């Protein structure tokens, strides 16, 4: 049995590597470099990095209080809140995207935002909002398990030594949850870099306007420019690999995906 199971494991991992390597090695190297340097891919890289960084920052800022509340406090409807905050994780991103589109595109609230010059639909702001909506649950889950693993007695000691509740959180719990914070941030950022469905629905796929890397891949593939599509894909593979390494290094305990 042991030999059979190990053989299956070896074959599957080889297939995965083979498939991905095949993609990277498909275009000749000089062509790949030219594609990577093309204005369209450069735009997509910069737009992806900027929107992912902003949406990750927003996710971190929102997830810290929510994750702490879920990990430490008892409050009414706690389970319902937990479910609601986990739902986007189980939802197909396309569905999340169309819900966002309806919310920002048709409701009075969405129209008010638009009138104030804060256009969400088919705009780069929409990219950020779609990414936050889809990825916040990941950040919350990772941070929640991180906070829950820290013995509350650390905070008790800090409080008896003169800390306010906030002081104990900032000086003890937050530093102790650093591995979870780093892992959560890298995963959220990498997932934002690769987010397609929700972004497509809310921000649309406009060349050189809302063209993130996955959108660039999609647009170029649909017009038959395989080299540009592969260039976008290669960058996304590198991003995923990097995020995975960071997570493995800082946060071996948590199984995030």
């Amino acid at each position, binding site marked *: 049995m042991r030999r059979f199971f190990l053989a299956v494991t070896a074959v599957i991992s080889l297939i995965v590597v083979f498939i991905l390597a095949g993609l990277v090695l498909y275009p000749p190297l000089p062509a790949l470099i030219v594609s990577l340097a093309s204005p369209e891919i450069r735009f997509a890289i910069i737009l992806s990095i900027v929107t992912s960084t902003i949406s990750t920052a927003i996710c971190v800022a929102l997830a810290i209080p929510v994750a702490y509340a879920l990990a430490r406090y008892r409050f009414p409807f706690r389970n319902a809140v937990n479910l609601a905050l986990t739902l986007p994780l189980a939802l197909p991103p396309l569905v999340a995207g169309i819900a966002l589109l309806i919310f920002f595109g048709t409701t009075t609230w969405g129209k008010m935002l638009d009138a104030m010059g804060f256009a969400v639909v088919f705009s780069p702001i929409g990219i950020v909002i779609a990414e936050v909506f889809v990825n916040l649950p990941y950040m919350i889950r990772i941070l929640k398990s991180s906070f829950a693993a820290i013995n509350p007695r650390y905070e008790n000691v800090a409080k008896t030594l003169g800390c306010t509740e906030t002081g104990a959180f900032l*000086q*003890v719990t937050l530093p102790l949850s650093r591995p979870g914070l780093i892992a959560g941030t890298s995963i959220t950022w990498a997932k934002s870099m690769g987010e397609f469905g929700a972004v497509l629905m809310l921000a649309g796929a406009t060349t050189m306007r809302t063209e993130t890397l996955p959108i660039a891949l999609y647009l170029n593939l649909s017009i038959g420019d395989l080299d540009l599509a592969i260039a976008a894909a290669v960058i996304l593979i590198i991003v995923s690999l990097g995020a995975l390494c960071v997570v493995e290094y800082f946060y071996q305990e948590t199984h995030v995906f």
Partner: protein
Amino acid sequence: MALHVESVSLALGDFSLRDVSFEVATGEYFVILGPTGAGKTIVLETIAGIHVPDRGRISWDGEDITHAEPRTRNIAVVYQDYMLFPHLTVEENIGFGLRQKNTEREEIQKRVAEMAELLGITHLLSRYPGTLSGGEQQRAALARALVIRPRILLLDEPTNALDTAMRERMRKELLRIHRVTGTTVIQITHHFEDVFALADRVAIMRDGAIVQIGEPSDVFWHPKDTRVAGFLGIGNMIAGTAKKAGDLVEVSTGTGVLVTAVSDVEGPVVATLHAEDVILSKAPFVSSAKNCLPGTVTELRPNGGIVTVCIDAGFPLTALLTRESCGDLDLTVGSRVFATFKATAVHVIPVHDA
């Protein structure tokens, strides 16, 4: 009396406190003794202000602190698992409380150094807690608590995680710290040895309630009910004075009986002996066991297949026998017997004189 805990009740998940009341005087060493799950840690945390009681009142020198925030109470706690902040060095851990009070840097350094000196951990100041042994972590945790000069030091089972030899040393250390700093101490434990070694007064706690409070000798020799006696039940407790006799000590009980024990403690002591370690015989017999005392059976208490035999050997002594051996020896009240036990079975605890 400095600390007043009056009729405190609190429900907290599976645990609860029921009408807990006691008082602790300034400078006193007060021990709360009880089995695991009696709610002892919750009592400490309620005094520290981590939990607010559902009912009842806590006051210090007449000032009501029932609802005061922990940080304003100046009551420090040392948990049994130390809870040193793993991301800070020992020095930063000890200085933590002073930093919260915006103490000047030089003052922090000076007081941290003093406290490290008192606890003998100066050489560990630059280390991280993860690299320290259990005993070293405990000293660091004590230093962190004491450096803020707390009006009460709360100790959560400080001798529990240690082995027997370390436990003895920690008791001496705690006594020394109590003498040097004069801090009021409330310690919880489920080791009765801690009570004799450390306590001015002891409270016995059970199922979230305090069932008896008094000086250690009161509580041990006059347990309020059989359940307290049962909890304290180590079978035999022999009060006396220990004197060295070669490599061993002889405990004189005051009625002329000498009990030999393996120990190096001298002076007033309590010696304990488990009832199952006592062998009874009709005639004295030669063996490697150091103690062979004549006595008279005063009571036989059968309980299932086991009989508890009470003997007057110049002091009350109990032995556990099977019903069968009891029959073989033909024991009745008034029978003359010899009680044999090894010197290693006798555990000598120095009595702390208040």
